[in-house]
Each structure stands twice: as C-alpha cells, then as structure tokens.
C-alpha cells in the first residue's frame, strides 16, 4: 500500500485552489503563503514548488503582483493579489470542489448504510 503517490497527486491538483483562496482574503507574499500552507501537511509545499507556480498564475493573469518595501532591515516583498479573471477561476473551482465533496460524502454514505 502506497498512499504517498495519491497524496502528491491531490496536492498537485489542489495547490492552485489553495493559493487563490488565500490570496482572495488579502494580499500575501510568497514566503507567507508557504508558511501558511506548511500548517497543513496535505498541501504543504516548498519554495521550489510555490514560486514557479505563482509565476504561472501570474502569466495566466489569475493573480497580479507588486513589490512593497517592508519595515527595518527586512527585504522588499512581492505581494500577490487576485485579479478579476482569477476570481472567476476561483469561483468555478469552488463549485467543482463542492461537487466533489458532495459526491464523496454521498458515496461514503451509501457504503455505510447501503
């Protein structure tokens, strides 16, 4: 039994979704996204995954970015915000996510009681 492969597929399939959900709340910078996701092992990912992924989301115009100076001694940070296009994409994803959850819970229910 090897559930790791399956887990990494889930992660790959849901990271876009997680990142867009975070950015929707407020502007985030890269390191902040990584730290936040690290709290949840199922979606935790390192810099070499998140940064290139952010770059792709930028290219596809789901997010936009701006550099901002930060307080004493700290380097400037690149903040990401959700675009209108990104918001539409996120809404479409949310809908499918709900569909998935409903499907799983119904299938589980049938297995338990059926």
């Amino acid at each position, binding site marked *: 039994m090897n559930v790791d*492969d399956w887990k*990494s597929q889930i*992660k*790959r399939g849901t*990271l876009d979704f997680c990142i867009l959900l975070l950015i929707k709340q407020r502007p985030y*910078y*890269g*390191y902040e996204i990584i730290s936040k996701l690290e709290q949840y092992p199922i979606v935790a*990912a*390192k*810099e*070499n*995954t998140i*940064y*290139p*992924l952010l*770059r*792709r989301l930028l*290219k*596809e115009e789901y997010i936009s970015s701006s*550099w901002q100076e930060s307080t004493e*001694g*700290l*380097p*400037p*940070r*690149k903040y990401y915000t959700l675009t209108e296009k990104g918001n539409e994409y996120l809404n479409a994803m949310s809908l499918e996510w709900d569909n998935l959850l409903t499907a799983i819970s119904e299938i589980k229910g049938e297995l338990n009681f059926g």
Partner: protein
Amino acid sequence: MDKIMNDYLVKIEKYLKSMSDSERIDIVKEIKSVMLELQNNGVSSEQIIERLGNPKELAKAYLGEAISKNSKFSWRKFGEIFAFCSSFAGVSGMLLLPFISTLSIALMIGGVITPIGGIVKFFGYLMGYDIAGITIEMGAFTPSPMQFLPISIVIGVLMFWLGKVLWKLTIKYIHTISQKKKTV
C-alpha cells in the same frame, strides 16, 4: 547576504539566461527576498540552500511553469519551449523537444499550405492552365486536376491535425519533466 547564498543566486541567474531580462531579474529578486526572510527568522545559510533545493531544479521548475498549461499554439510559447531546452542539456532538451516542436509547427503550416495549393491549381484548371509546379505524387499515382483539390484538402487536414496532436504532446511532456513528482 553571504557567499553561499550569493553563489546560489548567480547559478539561478545563469540557468534562467534564456528568459527576458525583466523576468529573470524579478525572479532572482524574489528568491533573494525569501532568503533574507528566512535568514531573519534564524535559519542558517546552509539550511536555506537545502530548503530551496538544487538551483538547476528550481530554474527548471520556473522554465517549465512559464510555459502556460493550456496547449493553445503561439509563437511566444514556441520560443519558451526553446528557452526551456537550451537551459538543459541531455537527449530530451537537445534533440527530442526541439525536433518534435519544430516538426509539429511544420506540419501545421504544411496543413494550411497544401489545400491552398489545391485551390490555386483547381482555379488554374478552370481557367485552362495546368500549373505544373503544384503537384502531388503518391508512388505511380498522380491525381488529375479534378482529383487534386479534394486530395489536397484531406492531406492538409490530416497534416494540421497531426501537427496539433504533436504540439499538445510537447506541452504535456515539458510539464511532466519540469515538475518531478518528488519535489511536490
């Protein structure tokens, strides 16, 4: 910023040389920013480098993700595929990818040109000319001007379709090799 981290950034910069200056500078700046952020949190340079992983792999991930996921064709994307290849030696980078991506475009172009040739020849025929410069030969069979038009359209559609399939495969292949399962 000590030597270890600086060397790392220099390497990243080198591997991303095929990107545009503004994009490359922005990427390096962002990696530098996260390095300083980690350093500020008390993480040692060695640990930071370890966290970021092999610079070559990181650059590869950037170049791979830069080729957007939809498989629509654009010349810009064609350039990006070559940028991806040029940074990474090896059989797939040096031979396979440039070969199949170029072939797919050649097929798509051929797929457009062939029916145009067919139409030109057909109208030439209607007006009483036989344009000898445009012709198809399949073994001993050479289609008459009347057969030429439908045959050229069929061949054109086939070539174009084959080119598109090959293009999609190219994009898929790049995404598979640029995001190795284990790094996720």
